[in-house]
C-alpha cells in the first residue's frame, strides 16, 4: 500500500549551513513514526518543510502519490496537519477554534462533532470558554482537536507534550493513537522522551546533524 506521505531525498540548505540533507521516509496510514534527535539537528525544520511552511532546497514530497508542486498549498495544509511545540489560541471560545479550519472551506462543523472532538481531548466542559484563558496543557489539547477536526491524512507533531504534565501528556497520547488507528492517519511524532516513543510508535527514526537514520542503525 502506498504511503500517505512519501519523502524522497529532501534537503534544506541555507546560505551558510545545511539544516538537513537527503532525508527519505514514508509515513503509512494508521502508523505512528517517532523521530528523535538532539536539539538543533533539523527535526523542526523538516516538519516545517513537510507542512510547506518553509521551502526545501532539493528532493520531493508526495502526498497520496501526488508531488507537492501539483497540490495547491492550502489544500496541502488541510491534509497535512502540523502541531507546534507551543500552540496559540485563535480568537473566540473553544468551539470557535474547532470550527475555524472547516469554515475556511465554507463547511460548518456540527455541534455534535464539536462536542466529540472536545471530549476526545478532555475539554468538553469548556466548550464556551474563551480559548485565551486555557492553561498550556489545555491549549495543546485544544490545538490537537483543532487539527483533527480538519480531517488530515497526515499528522506532524513537533514535541507536543514536552512542556505538559503527565495527565495532559496521557490524554494527547491516547487521542493521537486512537485517531491514527481509527481514521487511517499517518503520523510523524518528534519527541525527546524515549519512553514516550516506545509507548506510541511502531517505527523509530533518529536525526543527527541533519541526517536521518533508522533507530536501530543510529
Amino acid at each position, binding site marked *: 500500500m502506498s504511503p500517505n506521505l512519501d519523502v524522497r531525498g529532501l534537503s534544506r540548505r541555507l546560505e551558510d549551513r545545511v539544516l538537513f540533507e537527503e532525508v527519505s521516509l514514508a509515513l503509512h496510514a494508521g502508523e505512528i513514526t517517532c523521530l528523535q534527535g538532539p536539539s538543533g539537528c533539523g527535526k523542526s525544520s523538516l516538519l516545517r518543510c513537510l507542512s510547506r511552511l518553509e521551502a526545501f532546497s532539493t528532493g520531493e514530497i508526495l502526498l497520496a502519490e501526488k508531488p507537492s508542486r501539483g497540490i495547491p498549498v*492550502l489544500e496541502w495544509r488541510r491534509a497535512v496537519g502540523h502541531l507546534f511545540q507551543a500552540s496559540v489560541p485563535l480568537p473566540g471560545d473553544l468551539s470557535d477554534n474547532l470550527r475555524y479550519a472547516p469554515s475556511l472551506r465554507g463547511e460548518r462543523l456540527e455541534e455534535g462533532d464539536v462536542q466529540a472532538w472536545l471530549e476526545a481531548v478532555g475539554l468538553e466542559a469548556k466548550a464556551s470558554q474563551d480559548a485565551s484563558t486555557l492553561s498550556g496543557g489545555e491549549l495543546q489539547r485544544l490545538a490537537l482537536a483543532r487539527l483533527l477536526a480538519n480531517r488530515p491524512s497526515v499528522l506532524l507533531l513537533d514535541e507536543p507534550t514536552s512542556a505538559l504534565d503527565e495527565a495532559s501528556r496521557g490524554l494527547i497520547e491516547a487521542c493521537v493513537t486512537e485517531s491514527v488507528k481509527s481514521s487511517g492517519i499517518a503520523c510523524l511524532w518528534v519527541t525527546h522522551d524515549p519512553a514516550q516513543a516506545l509507548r506510541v510508535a511502531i517505527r523509530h527514526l533518529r536525526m543527527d546533524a541533519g541526517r536521518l537514520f533508522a533507530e536501530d542503525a543510529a
Partner: protein
Amino acid sequence: MSTSELADAARQALVAAGFALGAAFLLKRMGVDLLRETATSLLRGSVQIVAMGLALGFLLQGGAWVSLPVMAGMTLMAAHIAAQRLKDLPSRRTIALVSIAGGAFPGIGIGLGCGLISSRPAELLPVGSMILAAAMNAVSQGLNHFVPDLGRRKALIETHLSLGASVEQATADLACSAVRAGVLQQLNALASLGIVWIPGLMAGQILSGRPPLLSACLQFSAIALIAGATALSALCAVTLARRRLFDPHEERFRN
C-alpha cells in the same frame, strides 16, 4: 520685512523650539529618550522651512511647470523619511514611495480635476504638500504597526496558515489594525474640523479677504481629499509590505 520683525520671528521660533526640547527632556527623565532625535528634527526642520520659505517666494511666482519637479522632489523626500523608521522591511523605500504616490496623487488629481485647486504653484504646492505629508504619515504609522506586529504574532499567523488559511486571511486582523492606525489621525481631524481645530488654510483665506463660507468649503474639501489620500496610502503600504514579507504562491513567510 524689517530687521525688528525678523528678530521677533527668530525669538518666537526659539521659544517654540525650547518648548519642544523641554517636553523631550521631560520624556527622557521618564525613560523615553527622544531628546537627540527631537533636537536633530528641530534643527533640520528649521533649516528646511527657512529654505523652503525663501524658495517659495520664487516658485510661487512661476508657471505651472514649476509644480511638477517640486512635487516630485517632495514625494521622493517623503518616501525617504517614511522609510527611515522601517529597518525590518525589505524594499522599504520603494514601498513607501509607491504608497505615498498611490494615495497622494489621486487626491491631488481629483482636486485639480474638480477645480478645487489650480495648477498654479501658489495653490498646488501648499495643498499638494499637505496631502503628501498626510500620506507620508499614514504610510509611516501603518507600516510601523504592521511590520513589528507580524514579527510578534508569527506563531499565531503560522497557526492560521497551518490550518489552511491564506496569508490574506491569516493577517487580516493585523492589516486592518495597521490601516486603521494610518488613517485614524485624519479621520479625527475630519471629525473635529471647525470644533476643536480651525485649520491654517481656512484662517489664511479669511484673513486675505475670502468669504468665510467659501473658505470653509475649500478647507473641508482639502481635508476630505487628505482623508481619502491617507486611506489609499495606508492600504497600499500594508498590501505591498504583505507581498514583500510573504510568499504569495506558497502562502508563508518568505524564508
